[in-house]
């Protein structure tokens, strides 16, 4: 029913608003704000967006379950464009201005190290969810008491991938390799780690050429022709997201994939979908696959994500989801939001997870996760995109990682 607004109604409404206002304000103030920063524009944005999508699903789930310590949670998202100086500024702004009490740093390695330095001054807990460069947590000089990593780690992938590729290369009699990886910390460090382990398992490996395109480089023609000139039998690449898509599309023009075997740990669902003519037989790690681990819980999570966003999740999606699972468990354990208390609770924490190789993932004392599912197989141009998946041996990964840490004087 509508009608003219009387003076009495207006006064009554105004009074009600004044009475209710403190409650409304208090309810809003009681919301727990969690800062999230990532690459939300540009060629890598699909990964940043998939991180955000995953966190929004977690926000709904956590709020439906009563929030953290009885407080509803709310994410504050920021786009750093992956630039270190912007990432550092945004991290401070999220805490000091936006009032965030927890941080999810969903940056790539290009910016996560800058965020890590900022964390030294901020007394809040932070989980890096996407940076895979090993030294972020492996190097004690870089480690920060309140900052953790819930993500794959380069050295883990390097061991797992090298073991698989060494077997593959021996079977196919392939020893002349080329590398092509993005020219920043992740690309350089992780390629070096792969080669170190690869040569350990297959001493006759020869790297005939290396290419280092810039992150977000629009044209890979010169890189592709250089690779063709070098005539390797196989190519190892750490390109990812839009860069990998462009590289494959441009490589197809040169029939690159007919001239050499390609191995990459970075094939994600949206990239597979975006590459219109995905070559068969690329040796690939499972970034995220509904079929690996082949469990109902993993499949259910992947399908729920698809139902909500009408696209499939990425490796960054599950990592961000697991970060929230860790926060949830740690806050419950610590019964506090204090950065140091959460840090103490997180250290050594083991949680059940659909993404664990054995159904669990552990946050190790060095602030990084172990036990997540890693496997390698080969691509096919249609669903499930990667077949014949061989799971990695975590015992071997940890053994060789320990050895590597000693070599680096990290332990």
């Amino acid at each position, binding site marked *: 029913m509508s009608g003219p607004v009387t003076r009495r109604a207006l006064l009554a409404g105004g009074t009600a608003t004044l009475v209710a206002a403190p409650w409304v304000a208090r309810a809003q103030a009681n919301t727990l704000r969690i800062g999230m920063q990532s690459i939300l524009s*540009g*060629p*890598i944005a699909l990964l940043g967006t998939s991180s955000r999508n995953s966190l929004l699903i977690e926000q709904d789930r956590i709020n439906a379950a009563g929030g953290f310590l009885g407080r509803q949670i709310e994410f504050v998202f920021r786009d750093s464009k992956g630039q270190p100086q912007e990432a550092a500024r945004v991290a401070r702004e999220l805490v000091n201005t936006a009032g965030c009490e927890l941080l999810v740093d969903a940056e790539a390695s290009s910016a996560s190290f800058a965020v890590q330095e900022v964390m030294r001054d901020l007394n809040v807990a932070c989980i890096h969810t996407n940076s895979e460069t090993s030294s972020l947590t492996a190097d004690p000089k870089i480690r920060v008491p309140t900052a953790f990593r819930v993500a794959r780690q380069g050295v883990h992938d390097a061991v797992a991938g090298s073991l698989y590729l060494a077997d593959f290369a021996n079977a196919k009699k392939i020893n002349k390799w080329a590398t092509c990886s993005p020219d920043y910390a992740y690309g350089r460090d992780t390629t070096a780690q792969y080669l170190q382990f690869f040569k350990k398992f297959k001493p006759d490996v020869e790297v005939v050429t290396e290419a280092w395109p810039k992150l977000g480089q629009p044209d890979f023609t*010169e890189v592709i022709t250089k690779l063709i*000139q070098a005539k390797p039998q196989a190519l190892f690449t750490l390109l990812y997201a*839009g860069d990998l898509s*462009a590289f494959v*599309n441009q490589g197809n023009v040169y*029939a690159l994939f007919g001239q050499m075997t390609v191995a990459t740990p970075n094939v994600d669902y949206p990239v597979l979908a975006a590459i219109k003519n995905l070559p068969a037989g690329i040796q690939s790690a499972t970034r995220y696959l509904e079929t690996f681990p082949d469990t109902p819980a993993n499949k259910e999570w992947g399908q729920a994500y698809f139902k909500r966003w009408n696209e499939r999740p990425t490796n960054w999606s599950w990592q961000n989801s697991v970060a929230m699972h860790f926060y949830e468990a740690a806050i419950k354990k610590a019964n506090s939001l204090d950065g140091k208390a959460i840090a103490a609770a997180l250290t050594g924490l083991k949680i059940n997870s659909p993404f664990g190789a054995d159904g669990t993932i552990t946050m190790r004392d060095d602030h990084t996760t172990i036990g997540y599912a890693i496997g390698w197989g080969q691509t096919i141009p249609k669903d499930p995109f990667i077949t014949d998946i061989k799971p990695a041996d975590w015992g071997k990964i940890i053994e060789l990682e320990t050895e590597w840490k000693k070599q680096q004087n990290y332990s």
Partner: protein
Amino acid sequence: MDFNALGACFTTPACVVTQATSGLIVGMLLFLVAAGLTLIFGVLKIVNFAHGTFYMLGGYVAYSAYAETDSYALAVLAGAVAMALFGVLFERVLMSRVYGSNVLMQLLVCYAVVLIFDDIVKIVWGPEFRAMGMPAAFQVPPLFIAGGVVPPFYAVLIGIAALIAIVLSLGLSRTRLGKTVRAAAVNPQMVSALGVNTTVLFAIVFAIGGGLAGLAGALAGPVRSLSPGMGFSILIEGFIVTVIGGMGSIAGAMVAALVIGLVRGFGTIGFPGFTDGLIYIVMIGILVLRPQGLFGRPL
């Protein structure tokens, strides 16, 4: 530096053909972008800092047109025509108001357009990268010439860009419109006094410049990922080509684009990891010897 590899490449026909072709495709796409930049500067003395946006939007319009029609030719046409029209709009609504202003004002207007359209692209097409995919007609094995790899798609692109260069060159030198444009570049007041409608002329110049950038973005669609902000990197290289060639010179833009393309093509063999630096060294070297650029008028 790997002079052995570079020397070996120059003595191997297969390597020369492959690297020269890759240099040509990079150079030709750069030329299309730089030609518009240099034309606009030559006539209007305006440095269009928003030129990369035309390239980006051309790519996105082509992407959508291709998704709708499944025709690469129509997609390329749509990208070029849309950006030609956008060029007119851009000139009439914005740039015409800052003619004669200092370069800082022009830069601010252009930069605002860049930021606005980067955000518009995010809203319309999303922040994630987009890939057009290779048209079926070009999903064919590459040609092998003297042992070198030449992708048919790139050969077609080089041909189209070369044709555009010829048409542009003849259009400017042989047609009435071209002569008027060249006259306006030298003395716009006199051209106006002779009864030529310079308002229309300037809009046409922006239409051609924008259309060329849009065409480059559309042509590159099948092999390059589209993402918001993608115009920036091509703009920088476009400026390098424009400066090396001589501000305002179409022929200079062509030669400079080929130089940059070939430096990229062979630089990646002889100077791995330093290709970008090499381009700037070439630019500095040319400008030290000829401050006005290869085909520019003396400063």
